[in-house]
């Protein structure tokens, strides 16, 4: 990519998705660059390689902005014409331009030129950032509720289910169950009443995809749910949402009211025979309620404790009736599948994981934020190409996916493709989409302890392995990070962890040991270092630290003044010394020293 110092006049986007790449988009790039240079446009044109743009049947794809002209089936021979006519003369080449109106395109018109966004593919988040979430008009203008209308006009419930099945869409909440199959199972049940639930109890610490979706585009979730209700024969839907999301709740409430006013919710929707309405149910701060049976209990007004399955919610769910539960992101995909078609949808992603996945990219990474990429994108692409790599010249250490249920993957796994199977094989999980990047300053034992503290705190307390087992694992980890680890602790962690994951009642318990087991798998030496040598290689476990003053000390005395326990002594202008017995490892001297003369180890 040519470095730009001033804003470009044109932005030329080349799709670099697998299909386009196969169609030699790389050669195209060279040809374009050559043509630009020839005409002296190289400095004023930005050339961007994007992720898959989902127009594979017309590949290779070249997009020229402003104006968002899409050229399809471009060959190297076409390039001079495009550059001359469009970029020099400002007249798009009608012969090559294609009319594509995919729902996600609009996002690119606004954001496609920024590398962070250009590499992404926005399906669930297609409207987030380009419309007023509190305006039904805005949503309608972006073909909102057209999928619903299409379903009500042209499709039988069975056809809707078959389309969703064909799309290969899998639950975006974590487990990755085939959505269409879930719909089919629920549709098959005979019952006087059925329900649809949107799981918006986004509880992973560090994940906020669902909040952003609802805050940015609430109607898409509503539309998805109505279509789901139509497909399975339900007339009531519930959105179970965290009370900690007041803005999302307010926007959702407003969206529901407006949809109702416009005849998009309620009785005889859009003059059809179908009726459906949605209620909002608030969570109250319990991570476990993301588990579907716990969520159902919570909606029923009980403690959010999971129950054994079967019966599955599709058989016996809310108030004992067949219930279809999908999470926010899954629902947000539905209108796209209906309008742009399952055939199109299946062109995105990998063989077993279709479509895109939203990640909340955070931690020690340059560009933090929401990232939606086609399944099959590598971790490296997400962290380095989109995320911009690790800040402060630090080294990458691990990436954590799947939140407290997931695992930490080290550098050698950076080329893992994000899809359900690959991540699992690597020892982590897709989860709902938290992605935390960690640099060398993060201690893996400590991070495992952090996650276990979380699951321990969020354990509902019902089943023994999770309630008692995670507590014991946590105690062992606390011991290790304090330097009190003993021989055999690692084996105990493994023994407990394996038992807990195989014997716990629900997904929370079954996955609770994952952060420990995965760090044990990939960072075992770091554990051993803590236990055997009482050393924390990352330098974060306070009890294992020691501070020493090096030759760099000029004897300014600042550290001596800062030390709260008077453990530092030394004459002015002489090298100071820390009394290790008195030092409490608070680190204040380290922070205060202006000469980097204090060493932490």
């Amino acid at each position, binding site marked *: 990519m040519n470095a730009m110092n001033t804003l470009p006049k044109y932005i030329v986007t080349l799709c670099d998705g697998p299909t386009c790449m196969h169609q030699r988009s790389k050669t195209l790039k060279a040809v374009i660059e050559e043509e630009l240079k020839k005409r002296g446009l190289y400095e004023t044109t930005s050339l961007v390689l994007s992720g898959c743009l989902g127009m594979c049947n017309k590949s290779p794809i070249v997009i020229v902005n402003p104006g968002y002209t899409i050229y399809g089936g471009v060959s190297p021979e076409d390039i001079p014409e495009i550059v001359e006519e469009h970029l020099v003369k400002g007249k798009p080449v009608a012969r090559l331009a294609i009319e594509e109106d995919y729902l996600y395109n609009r996002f690119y018109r606004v954001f496609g030129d920024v590398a962070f966004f250009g590499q992404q593919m926005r399906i669930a988040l297609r409207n987030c950032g380009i419309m007023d979430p509190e305006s039904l008009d805005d949503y309608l203008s972006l073909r909102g509720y057209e999928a619903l209308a299409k379903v009500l006009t042209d499709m039988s419930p069975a056809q809707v289910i078959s389309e969703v099945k064909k799309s290969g869409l899998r639950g975006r909440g974590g487990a990755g169950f085939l959505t269409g199959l879930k719909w089919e199972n629920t549709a098959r049940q005979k019952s006087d009443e059925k329900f649809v639930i949107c799981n918006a109890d986004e509880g992973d610490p560090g994940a906020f995809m669902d909040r952003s979706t609802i805050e940015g585009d609430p109607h898409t979730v509503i539309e998805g749910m109505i279509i789901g209700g139509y497909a399975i024969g339900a007339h009531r839907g519930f959105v179970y949402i965290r009370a900690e999301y007041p803005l999302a709740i307010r926007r959702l409430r407003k969206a529901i009211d407006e949809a109702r006013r416009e005849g998009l919710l309620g009785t005889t929707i859009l003059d059809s025979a179908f009726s459906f309405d949605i209620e909002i149910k608030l969570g109250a701060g319990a991570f476990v309620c993301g588990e579907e049976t716990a969520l159902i209990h919570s909606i029923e007004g009980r403690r959010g404790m999971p*129950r*054994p399955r079967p019966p599955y919610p599709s058989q016996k769910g809310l108030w004992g009736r067949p219930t279809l539960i999908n999470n926010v992101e899954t629902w947000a995909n539905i209108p796209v599948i209906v309008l742009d078609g399952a055939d199109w949808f299946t062109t995105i992603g990998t063989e077993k994981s279709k479509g895109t996945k939203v990640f909340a990219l955070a931690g020690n990474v340059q560009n933090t934020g929401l990232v939606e990429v086609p399944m099959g994108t590598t971790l490296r692409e997400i962290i380095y190409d989109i995320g911009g790599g690790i800040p402060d010249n630090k080294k990458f250490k691990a990436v954590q996916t799947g939140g407290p249920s997931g695992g930490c993957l080290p550098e050698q796994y950076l080329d893992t493709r994000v899809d359900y199977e690959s991540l699992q094989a690597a020892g982590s999980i897709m989860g709902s989409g938290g992605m935390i990047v960690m640099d060398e300053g993060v201690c893996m034992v400590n991070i495992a302890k952090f996650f276990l503290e979380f699951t321990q705190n969020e354990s509902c*307390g019902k*089943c023994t*392995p999770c309630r*008692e087992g995670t507590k014991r694992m946590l105690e062992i980890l606390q011991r290790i990070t304090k330097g009190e680890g003993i021989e055999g602790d690692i084996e*105990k962690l493994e023994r407990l962890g394996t038992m807990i994951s195989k014997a716990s009642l629900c997904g929370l318990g079954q996955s609770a040991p994952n952060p420990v087991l995965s760090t044990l798998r990939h960072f075992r030496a770091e554990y051993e270092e803590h236990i055997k040598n009482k050393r924390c290689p990352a330098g974060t476990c306070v009890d294992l630290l020691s501070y020493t003053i090096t030759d760099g000390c000029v004897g300014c005395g600042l550290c001596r003044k800062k030390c709260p326990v008077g453990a530092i002594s030394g004459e002015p202008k002489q090298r100071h010394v820390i009394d290790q017995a008195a030092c409490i490892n608070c680190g204040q001297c380290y922070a205060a020293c202006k000469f980097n003369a204090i060493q932490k180890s």
Partner: protein
Amino acid sequence: MKQMITIYVNDKAYQVESGQTIMQATDGIGFRIPRLCYHPKLSIEGACRVCIVEVEGARNYIASCSYPVNDGMRIYTNTVPLRRARRDIVELILDNHPDDCHTCERDGICELQRLAYSMGIRRRHFEGEKKNYEKDLSSISVIRDPNKCILCGRCVRLCSEVQHVNALGYANRGFQTVVMSAYDRPFSESVCTNCGQCINVCPTAAFVEKNYTQELFDKLNDSSVIKIAQVAPSVRAAIGEAFGIPPGQAFEREVAAALKKLGFTYVFDTQFGADLTIMEEASEFLERIQGNGVLPMVTSCSSAWMKYVEQFYPDLLPNVSTCKSPMSMLSAMAKTYFAEKIKIDPAKICVAAIMCCTAKKYEAARPELMVNGLPATDIVVTTREIAWMIRSAGIDFLHIEGEDFDAPLGLSSGAGAIFGVTGGVMEAAIRTAYELYTGETLIDIEVNAIRGFQGIKEGKVLMDGKEIRVAVVHGLGHVYQILDMVRNEPGRFHFIEIMGCPGGCIGGGGQPYAGSNSVPLDEEVLQKRAQALYGLDRERTFRRSHENPHVQKLYKEFLGRPLSSLSHKLLHTHYTPKEPRGIITREQTA
């Protein structure tokens, strides 16, 4: 049509009925997968994870209590990793449980202890912080010790699903989860009816009765006191179990003998009190039907039911018979009629009631039951406590020579004996009321319509052409059904018997713990205890309360007639609505 399917357990094929859980299926073919939170009478919790098995094709272990069998399923119940996981799970429970087995009430009869032993836990691997809560000693009947609680949830489910009292619930979550009453208030301030069924289903000693054995031993060793015992019918029907005798054998005269050996001066029979109750209650009933009294009349013998009605249905208190319970009637007679007879200051008499019931401890302390300023019943001990006392005092219960109860309050009719079984009070009342009303003797006195363990039983009796419609309820969980009927169709019944515990007093909260080969609330055990009492009834010379010559004598010498003013003073009482108001649940809510 039951469909048979093939399952493989540890690679051996078995034919089992479809539609069962793995546990049900394997129970039927000679296995008994270890279990803890599971209880056949309660909803499936799936919490303890002790009953896990391996199922081919499943990624994780499967809780056999909840997972259905399907054709061709391959189940493994004893693989090495599974055994280790199960063992570790039980160890995790132990690791958060006091290590005080030797000094524990349930030492030797604790399900957790048994389970830990059979899991082969000989060493600890995962010890750490243990929970540390205060015992709740506030209730006069039931002690709650959260430290011994293993969160199997049986008590919570029982209190909600079986009894519909909902005094118990989980509070907090995760490692901090505790079973407690609302707002963490003392148990005594809750809606608890003291039925004690939580004690029966608890696998450990997280719930035990408030123990009064030491007080009783003190009294028994106090020569300045006249020690009077009275024994409830159901005690004799179950006490053998506490000594390892299979259920179903009555130990009537043996109990009397053991109590005398313990040091009681007089051993009376609560069944005499029962006969007396029938005299009063049948008369009250006839008075109500003849004099436009409030109908239907509801019995008042069950202490748990009495607290329940005061809290949950205060508006229906006028329907409740004013009769005291047999225990309280007998105690009242002991401290008046009998005290006069032996010319002893009633204050020097200690009446100890040996009851199958924990709620009787609460009843004994009710101020409205005082007689001439003295508590009528001084101490109540349960079947379990008395069995322990007998053992502790070095009495060889199994080889004891039986003795008679003492006169004049020790002779009872068969009607008094069946008081202990659900339907018994009604049956006894019918036997007497029929004769009082018609003047004729009821020949077919075994009223089968109201025997048995159905939750609600209905029957009809023709008395001189008048149809008397009766109903019998046992277990507080069924009460709302019958009382809804009473509200919706006030004329539907004339007389209703309500017992707080499932099965009636034979299933009381003070009865011996389930042995190692049965489960608490086992209906088969209840049947056998019932049969024991029906057997006593059949063996009696007198089977109708009014035929009891000592009862007749009591009226002649002291009370005059049923419902006399002295009767009213000593044998009847009144009830008042109690706080906190109970919330009636028609569906289970836990």
